[in-house]
């Protein structure tokens, strides 16, 4: 049964590529084929996962090798996949949320004439993401890694007729390349050090290598993870990626692909366990990103960009948890899953709102939508409660665990996550109030209406999961389940009881909610205030903390100068030498051409002149 796990990948891939090749006649049913393919992967994933749950704990990791991919001397790579506790959870998340988003997209993209292509790209994404999580070898993982990068590029730039979308796609691709350099170097280092890039082998034998090897690998993998997961300093592409259709933002840039970095860190648990420096680097990256993302989320009026800032922030939480080592791995994955539910829900809800508001994304043009879109309001509300950590919802359990674990690591890290929780509550309440409560600030000829059933049903499903997802922690199920893969943690005793901790976290979130309600309950300006009148903090947040400017100054401009210099060198130096030689030869020819007048008599004169010279020379030689 587990030998057939390649079908999980093959079916969506075949559907995706097939739909691209099939042509126009599949326009009518292409979206159904794609949705079926994704559903198949989900159902098959559920079957495999159920078998895994029924098996003994020792018998829960199944590796199957399809064939030898590369075999050259010492260099040996099998195309093999591992279905174990960790990748099983991911398969369920990817295919489950993925299928719901496929269904939602049927409605959302109904009027797009390139819908078939859109679904084909979604399928390719699902296949790549599954390759990424099922891979048993870092090189195979890299294959999926690049595959999701490609799918992300294609989907961000799906509305390529808009210049901004095309530019955003390019930006995402290029920023991801920076991270990929880290991945590629990490894999090469593995080959150099261990002679293999098998995930199990590398993580198993890392303890026999020196700490500096583990640190180096950890930092290189972190660079890759930063690129894919939009962590500081490679965060700048995520906000621009919102140019893509909203289901893409939900699937790729919130629920699944951007979590690949967290998966990578957790999957490489052996490497990070062996290096304290690498772990601390992960914590720092996570902490900085979670605060930066929350800051940006507070200031954006574009509902999708605000959610994107929130995504950055939440992935920062996961990264931070993953950096805590065995104490945090399971909670990172737990938060990743609950976040996958509620963030997909929030994004799809935002898409549903946009759908009813003529694709306007400015929250200042919303207001009082709760009566116009009751279902969207209810599901969005559930996602909202989950993300701010309202007691009983999924986010409450998963975020609390991370904050507790962070306090177990160090007081300051814990404080950072606690502040993040408060700010999260603030910006989400702001979004909620601006969108669904308060006055109507609708533009003319906008008639908000509820979305069709095909869009609201996935919303309801995800809304339910946003609440129920927290059940994974009951009876410590998820740490126990993941224990064999990522290791068990020794339990940190905090200075205060757990219930007090929970109370503090909830109180912090409530403060955030209260501040937002106080600020945004009153009349809100119908247009975004100009940058010159808002505070310096708001201005910084709107400019995404000047991330683009920093990249510009540190990377883009120096590169451009270098390019200009190289072009100059090429034109003046290399070309100068080559064309200069040719020019001189040309000049010589032009000079030699002159005597070739075509007149017989001038040739004759030359002939006689020449003969005369020869005769004179002979005479001179003879007489001398």
């Amino acid at each position: 049964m587990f030998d057939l796990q390649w079908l999980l990948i093959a079916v969506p891939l075949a559907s995706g590529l097939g739909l691209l090749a099939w042509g126009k006649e599949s326009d009518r049913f292409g979206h159904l084929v794609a949705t079926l393919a994704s559903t198949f992967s989900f159902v098959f994933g559920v079957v495999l996962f159920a078998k895994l749950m029924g098996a003994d704990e020792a018998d829960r990791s199944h590796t199957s090798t399809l064939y030898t991919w590369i075999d050259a001397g010492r260099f040996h790579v099998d195309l093999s996949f591992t279905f174990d506790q960790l990748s099983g959870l991911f398969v369920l998340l990817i295919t489950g949320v993925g299928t719901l988003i496929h269904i939602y997209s049927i409605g959302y993209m109904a009027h797009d004439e390139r819908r078939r292509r859109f679904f084909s790209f979604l399928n390719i994404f699902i296949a790549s993401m599954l390759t990424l999580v099922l891979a048993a070898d870092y090189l195979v993982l890299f294959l999926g890694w690049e595959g999701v990068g490609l799918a992300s590029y294609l989907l961000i730039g799906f509305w390529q007729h808009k210049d901004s979308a095309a530019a955003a796609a390019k930006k995402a691709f290029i920023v991801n390349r920076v991270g990929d350099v880290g991945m590629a170097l990490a894999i090469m280092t593995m080959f150099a050090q261990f002679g293999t890039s098998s995930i199990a082998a590398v993580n198993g034998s890392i303890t026999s290598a020196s700490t500096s090897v583990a640190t180096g690998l950890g930092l290189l993998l972190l660079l890759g993870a930063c690129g894919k997961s939009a962590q500081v300093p490679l965060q700048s592409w995520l906000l621009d990626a919102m140019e893509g259709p909203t289901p893409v933002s939900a699937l790729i840039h919130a629920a699944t692909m951007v979590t690949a970095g967290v998966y990578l860190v957790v999957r490489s648990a052996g490497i990070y366990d062996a290096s304290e420096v690498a772990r601390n680097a992960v914590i720092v990256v996570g902490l900085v990103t979670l605060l930066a993302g929350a800051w940006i989320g507070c200031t954006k009026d574009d509902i999708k960009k605000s959610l994107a800032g929130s995504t950055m922030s939440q992935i920062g939480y996961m990264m931070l948890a993953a950096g805590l080592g065995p104490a945090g791995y399971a909670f990172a994955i737990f938060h990743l899953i609950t976040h996958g539910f509620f963030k997909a829900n929030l994004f799809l809800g935002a898409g549903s709102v946009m759908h009813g508001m003529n694709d306007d994304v400015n929250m200042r043009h919303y207001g009082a939508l709760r009566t116009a879109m009751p279902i969207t309001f209810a599901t969005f509300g559930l996602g909202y409660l989950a993300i701010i950590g309202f007691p009983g919802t999924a986010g409450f359990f998963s975020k609390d665990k991370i904050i507790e674990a962070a306090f177990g690591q160090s007081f300051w890290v814990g404080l950072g996550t606690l502040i993040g929780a408060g700010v999260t509550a603030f910006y989400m309440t702001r979004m909620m109030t601006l969108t669904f409560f308060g006055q109507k600030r609708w533009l003319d000829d906008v008639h908000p209406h509820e979305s069709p059933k095909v869009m609201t049903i996935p919303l309801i499903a995800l809304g339910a999961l946003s609440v129920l997802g927290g059940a994974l922690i009951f009876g410590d199920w998820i740490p126990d389940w993941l224990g064999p893969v990522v290791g068990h943690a020794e339990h940190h005793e905090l200075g205060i009881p757990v219930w007090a901790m929970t109370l503090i976290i909830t109180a912090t979130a409530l403060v955030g909610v209260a501040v937002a309600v106080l600020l945004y309950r009153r009349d809100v300006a119908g247009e975004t205030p100009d940058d010159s009148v808002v505070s310096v903090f708001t201005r910084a947040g709107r400019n995404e903390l000047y991330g683009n400017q920093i990249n510009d100054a540190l990377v883009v401009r120096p590169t451009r100068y270098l390019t200009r210099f190289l072009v100059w060198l090429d034109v003046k130096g290399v070309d100068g030498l080559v064309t200069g030689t040719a020019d001189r030869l040309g000049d010589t020819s032009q000079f030699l051409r002159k005597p070739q007048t075509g007149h017989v008599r001038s040739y004759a004169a030359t002939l006689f002149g020449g003969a005369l010279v020869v005769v004179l020379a002979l005479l001179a030689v003879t007489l001398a």
Partner: protein
Amino acid sequence: MTEYLTLSLILFTIGAVGVLLRRNAIVVFMCIELMLNATNLAFVSFSRQHGNLDGQVAAFFVMVVAAAEVVVGLAIIVSIYRTRRSTSIDDASLLKS
């Protein structure tokens, strides 16, 4: 002896000047013949002076070659005249575009 060579030199000079200055192809052609015959005269004179036949043999060769050259050259001139209605050698400069 000197008289013969002087005559040869004069003839050759007349021929050379004609080749360089005249435009009519027939006249240029005749001047070339004049130069050839001037050299023939020099050959024969030297042959007489040295008392062997080498110069005379060379003169015969020159005559043979000159006869062949006349055949080809006249044919070219006639065909140019037919197409261009002109025997001016300055007109026949078409290879230089």
